[in-house]
């Protein structure tokens, strides 16, 4: 093909244009804003889980802006950045957003992989990283992980509550002896998280643990479920994400595994995980740390102020408000907003910095009354973080799917996880991390 001068010139011009486009645009709007990057994913294989969460987080701050005029009069600006659940894009997004305006105040990547990537970076840049029910469990130890917070529950807590549920259903801890439990997990850092805890518990309680990894993306799990069929475990736990969840639920139904003995972690407990499985999913359970549904004042306000005024990022989402992943996004938003409010009050400023927000997190207390004031009465348990304890009190329940009514319902009390089991494991893991990376644990007195 003939190569003309015009083509050459267009090539050069587009090259120059591209170079200028690489520069991040410092989004400075009128006046001061609270910069809250949202490293979310609305595309790629994990988009169905990422979309509701990202919407919840964005909608909560849109609500604060529309209803209250921001936090103490300062508007919050949620800066979305698409990661596609990909750690490399996550790094790019982080670097791009961290210096916008007066600097980012908190990060929440909704990906265990990106969390691991960002832990050293946020510590160096002094920006809090808030991982709600995901990320690195041992980050609970604030002495080692100064800038990482994981309220109100970690994967290990989820695993212990799942075991507690088994104990309740079987009628006593001694009944677990000789029982078989299988863990079907996403073969990645995320899925491997609960293994240590379950191993420790299996030694303590005498049940037999079978590990069944499923490789990304998890479209084909025949072999896994054949093994379940052969071993006939009494319970199956699942740490899955994305398409793996739906396929696993279908396969479990196919081999006639009783759904009420199939318990997923909270990330395997979204509407999009059970809906595609249709009536097969009836009775499937998952652990959860937020209430279900949209029957809260905040949700009403979001419908009125955000969707009603056309301020939502994703306007078509309105009828899905109240999905479990969405509620987690709201939870994350509320937590960050409260920390910023506290940082403003403690330092008597309207321009908090990452360090101030971190300090605020370490003294953050959201009582049940405060949750009610926020329009989220009985939404979740109280929060109380400290310098040494970056998780705080934890309350986890079990929810069950009703395929007829197409909704989750909470079937147990909100119970505390077994901290006696996880604390030594957290200590060991965080100390190993500190040693490997030459971190001297700070003094929390």
């Amino acid at each position, binding site marked *: 093909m003939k190569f003309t001068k015009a083509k*050459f010139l267009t090539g050069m011009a587009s090259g120059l244009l591209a170079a200028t486009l690489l*520069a991040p*645009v410092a989004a400075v709007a009128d006046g001061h804003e609270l910069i809250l990057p949202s490293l979310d994913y609305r595309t790629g294989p994990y988009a169905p889980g990422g979309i509701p969460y990202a919407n919840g987080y964005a909608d909560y701050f849109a609500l604060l802006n529309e209803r209250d005029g921001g936090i103490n009069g300062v508007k919050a600006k949620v800066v979305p950045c698409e990661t596609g659940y990909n750690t490399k894009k996550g790094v790019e997004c982080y670097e791009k957003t961290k210096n916008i305006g007066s600097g980012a105040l908190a990060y929440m990547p909704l990906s265990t992989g990106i969390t691991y990537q960002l832990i050293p970076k946020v510590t160096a840049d002094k920006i809090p990283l808030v991982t709600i029910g995901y990320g690195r469990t041992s980050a609970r130890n604030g002495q080692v992980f100064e800038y990482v917070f994981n309220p109100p529950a970690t994967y290990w807590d989820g695993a212990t509550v799942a075991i507690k549920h088994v104990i309740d259903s079987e009628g006593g801890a001694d009944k677990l002896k000789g029982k078989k439990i299988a863990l079907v997990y996403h073969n990645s850092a995320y899925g491997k998280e609960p293994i240590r805890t379950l191993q420790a518990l299996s030694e303590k309680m005498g049940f037999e643990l079978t590990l069944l990894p499923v490789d990304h993306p998890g479209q084909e799990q025949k072999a896994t479920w054949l093994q379940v069929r052969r071993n006939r475990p009494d319970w199956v736990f699942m740490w899955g994400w994305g398409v793996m969840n739906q396929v696993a639920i279908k396969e479990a139904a196919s081999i006639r595994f009783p759904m009420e003995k199939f318990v997923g972690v909270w990330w395997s407990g979204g509407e999009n995980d059970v809906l595609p499985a249709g009536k097969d999913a009836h009775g499937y359970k998952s652990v959860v740390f937020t209430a279900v549904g949209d029957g809260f004042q905040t949700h009403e306000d979001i419908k009125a102020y955000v969707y009603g005024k056309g301020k939502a990022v994703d306007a078509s989402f309105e009828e899905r408000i109240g999905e479990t992943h969405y509620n987690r996004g709201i939870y994350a938003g509320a937590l960050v907003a409260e920390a910023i409010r506290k940082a403003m009050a403690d330092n008597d400023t309207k321009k908090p910095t990452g360090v101030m927000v971190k300090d605020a997190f370490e003294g953050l207390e959201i009582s049940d009354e405060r949750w009610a004031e926020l329009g989220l009465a009985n939404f979740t348990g109280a929060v109380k973080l400290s310098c040494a304890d970056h998780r705080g009190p934890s309350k986890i329940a079990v929810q069950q799917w009703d395929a007829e009514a197409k909704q989750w319902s909470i079937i147990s009390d909100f119970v505390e996880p077994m901290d006696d089991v996880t604390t030594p494991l957290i200590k060991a893991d965080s100390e190993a991390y500190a040693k490997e990376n030459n971190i001297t644990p700070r003094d929390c007195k």
Partner: protein
Amino acid sequence: MFYRETGQFKTNYSDDRAIFPIAQDRYGIMILLAIAFFVIPFTVDDYWGNAIFLPLLIYALIAMGLNVLVGYCGQISLGTAAFMAVGSYASFKLMTSFPGLDFSIVVLMSGLITAVVGSLFGLPSLRIKGFYLAVATLAAQFFIIWLVNKVEWFYNYSATGQINAPERTALMFPVTGPNAPILYKYFFCLIIVVLAALVTKNIVRGRIGRQWMAIRDMDIAAELIGVRPLTTKLSAFAVSSFLIGMGGALYFGVWLGAAEPTEAFGIDQSFLILFMIIVGGLGTILGSFLGAAFLWLFPIAFKNFMVDGLGLSTAMSEHLQIILMGGLIIFFLIVEPHGLARLWQITKEKLRIWPFPH
């Protein structure tokens, strides 16, 4: 007018064999290197370093490695990410087992270890040819990732199989870990990439490179004129894996700082690097750089343009970007099937006779 070799006489053989026989090319590359060494380092911040230049350099290095194998020796490989993983895990084990070891030595040794593993998976190439050979490298891809994800020794028995790069220095300058200044990281990668490019360029235009190309163009004919397939193919696998392994060590140690095997070294990563060399130009060193630049920078530039410039939602911009990316790849192939490097070459030829094209 400005780009013309008229009047540049070579008076000895070494002039004639120079990498850049034309003076303008020589000055051009010198200016480029001068910018890379003396201008960029002092303007680079965290964003430009971590999101633009480091990945660019590291991907270029890895693409160069793959180009040796695919572009020069004609052996197709879909296991690049696995060899990157070997380099990464080798560097991780070396860093944690010998804390005092200089990081530059770690990178070199990671390259060597990867070269050994790569040659091993190159053995089937002696029997299987063409696209069927992809199966050998695909086996490497899935087997190696499975291995490092499963055997706890590789990730020092941590709870989840993630690995983190501790802080290490190269010649007293910290280059890994979160606190290492971006300036040192950039310089470290730049020096390694420039040296690797220089060495590779010289290998491919020397005896070994010519043997590779002979095998690529027609292996039976090459064998008949005395090129030994065993040593030639395996040396291509070894050199390629060496570069990819060094790239992997930088990718994990300097750039990402932490890695999860299934995600950071997945098969999509292998494909990405293959795309880089095809778009950039098979069998050219320049193409590795151009391809890496195109496939890494274009999505970022487009994202910035759509989201910050036009105010589109991130999801919409991602969808449009991927459509445009695909469209551009097809467009480039139709305009010039032999990659961006060939496009550059044509540009040079045009320049030579400009402004009197006929």
